[in-house]
């Protein structure tokens, strides 16, 4: 099956290894992976900040770069939701884990003996309704899943929110890191959450935060 990989801007610029892991997982699941060279960003930062004209510019670029007749897969719940709900063209867009789970993919058993906590990114959970797929996949890699006490809570990123309300945003990250701190690593399917949680965790010496694609492809250790 042919798919188009949308790296997302954060994936491309900050987490290229996680995107490479996503690509490897897709190939292992039997997909032919295209990487449309014209891709940049889905425009969500502008959209969520209210700058619709700026968001439209990026949406138009997205529609030039991606073929609406080929499924789009991206390692980000938030960007997948943006593409699913806010584009002028309808795409068959999937967040990576829901796509792999739908294919009954069997990621390698790289997490044997590891205790992992999964943070549901808000847009993946509430806008795309994907809840169990990431946990199911992690389970297949041999990880023991440690349930979060408050899986419903946002990590505090929220794009420009993390700067406008920095104190609250950081306090939210602290709760998430503490909640995930009982595990060996905290896994998330969203580069936004990943960037934010890593940034806080590295400042205060908290739990390791890993992208889901990496945890599935190479293990979270």
């Amino acid at each position, binding site marked *: 099956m042919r798919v188009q990989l949308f790296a997302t801007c954060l994936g491309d610029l900050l987490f290229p290894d996680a995107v490479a892991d996503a690509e490897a997982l897709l190939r292992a699941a039997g997909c032919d992976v295209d990487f449309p060279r014209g891709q940049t960003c889905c425009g969500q930062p502008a959209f969520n900040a209210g*700058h619709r004209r700026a968001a439209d510019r990026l949406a138009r*670029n997205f529609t030039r770069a991606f073929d609406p007749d080929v499924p789009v897969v991206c390692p980000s719940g938030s960007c997948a939701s943006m593409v699913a709900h806010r584009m002028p063209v309808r795409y068959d867009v999937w967040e990576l884990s829901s796509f792999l789970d739908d294919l009954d993919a069997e990621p390698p058993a790289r997490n044997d003996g590891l205790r992992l906590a999964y943070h549901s990114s808000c847009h993946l959970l509430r806008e795309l309704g994907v809840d169990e797929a990431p946990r199911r996949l992690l389970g297949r890699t041999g990880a023991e899943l440690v349930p979060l006490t408050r899986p419903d809570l946002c990590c505090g990123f929220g794009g420009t929110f993390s700067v406008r309300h920095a104190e609250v945003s950081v306090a939210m990250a602290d709760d998430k890191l503490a909640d995930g701190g009982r595990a060996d690593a905290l896994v998330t399917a969203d580069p936004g959450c990943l960037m934010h949680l890593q940034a806080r965790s590295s400042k205060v010496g908290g739990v390791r935060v890993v992208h889901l694609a990496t945890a599935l492809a190479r293990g979270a250790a």
Partner: protein
Amino acid sequence: MSFPVLDEHRLAATDAATLRLMNGRTSAWARLDDVEELRERAHSIRMQAIDDLEGHLARFVAALEAAGGTAHVCSTAEEARATVTRICTDAAAKLAAKSKSMLSEEIELNGALEAAGIEVVETDLGEYILQLAGEHPVHIIAPAIEKTAADVAVLLSAVEGEPVEPELEALAQAARKQLRRVFERADVGITGANFAVCDTGSICLVTNEGNGGLVTALPRVHVALLGLERLVPTLDDLAVLIQLLAPSGTGQTLTSYTRLLTGPRRPGEDDGPEEMHVVIVDNGRTGLRRGRYKEMLACIRCGACLNVCPVYRKSGGSAYSPVYSGPMGAVLVPLLRGLEREPGLPHASSLCGACTAACPVKIPLHELLLDLRRDLVGEGIASRRERLAFAIWSMLWSRPILYRLSTAIARAGRPFGALAGPGRTWAQGRTLPALARRRFRDSR
């Protein structure tokens, strides 16, 4: 502009209360036969009234007057304050006993009555505590969420003139005694109204303590403050809404008292007011009926969105505007007061969508926040600098070649930190993320 985090004590209180209320709602929803169907029905009942407020209002007023009540339709807060004050002075009132009403907070009624020489006493326990403390409610249904028993003991002891033990039972008994005197002496009872039924001219009042019953039974005059949008067509429709209200608010099946008041006392009855006035307040509500914003008028003030909101949970109600807080406040207040006066509220959300998922009447709260942010930009309220930054960024990144160029330059220079202001703010509690040495696209 930026919301603070509550101090440790208030944080713990808010956290515990919101968690309990949230869990109460989810268990109560699970006990309902088909909560999704009920939510859909509730939403359509609310929108039916909102789409024809004039028609529903006319029907309600006619039915209320047929039952012997008096309707006063007020377009502004000022008019509503003056109307209630006039009703009280016409009744030569010295003391007004109030049952909880967010609308009375919205129109700042107490100050107006006091200025007219009328003593006003809040009789809802939480509101009474706040009135003694001189503070605003911080939660729609748990107004004194941040106060401890010790705080309350100090306030009640001052009224009592002798120490009241900071024990729950003792505090409740002291308040009961203090407020019973108020119910018995009050000339006017002032309440809100959770709903008004167009067919019967009734107002529906939902309470747990019973104060709503006493202020509508003992004083000579009853004044009910009704938000214009709280009209429901029929009693059947009311049944749907009250089946959702308590489960969503407190996690109860029903509150202890659900009261339908239809006109003043009738011949032969021993108690109940001689006059019943319903003061129907617009105060910006009809102006909300543009685009998707009219959905906000469906709000039944249950507080469910506050309890699930991670921002409310950290900052508490006082970080928002004085009356309505949490996600519903962040949407409603800018719409009622004008975006230019409340430009910060639409940004007081990480857009996690927990509010939308928790809303019993299916108001797309986080989508409305997005629309408000769009309008902040569209109406030129967002700063010029911010608009310019997004414009330039989008022009660069909407062309792949300029994206590659700009990100290559950024990697060569000092990355995100070079973004000055936002980067500095970010870096206060977090490390700045470093751009990868090779972009993903460079590896293919």
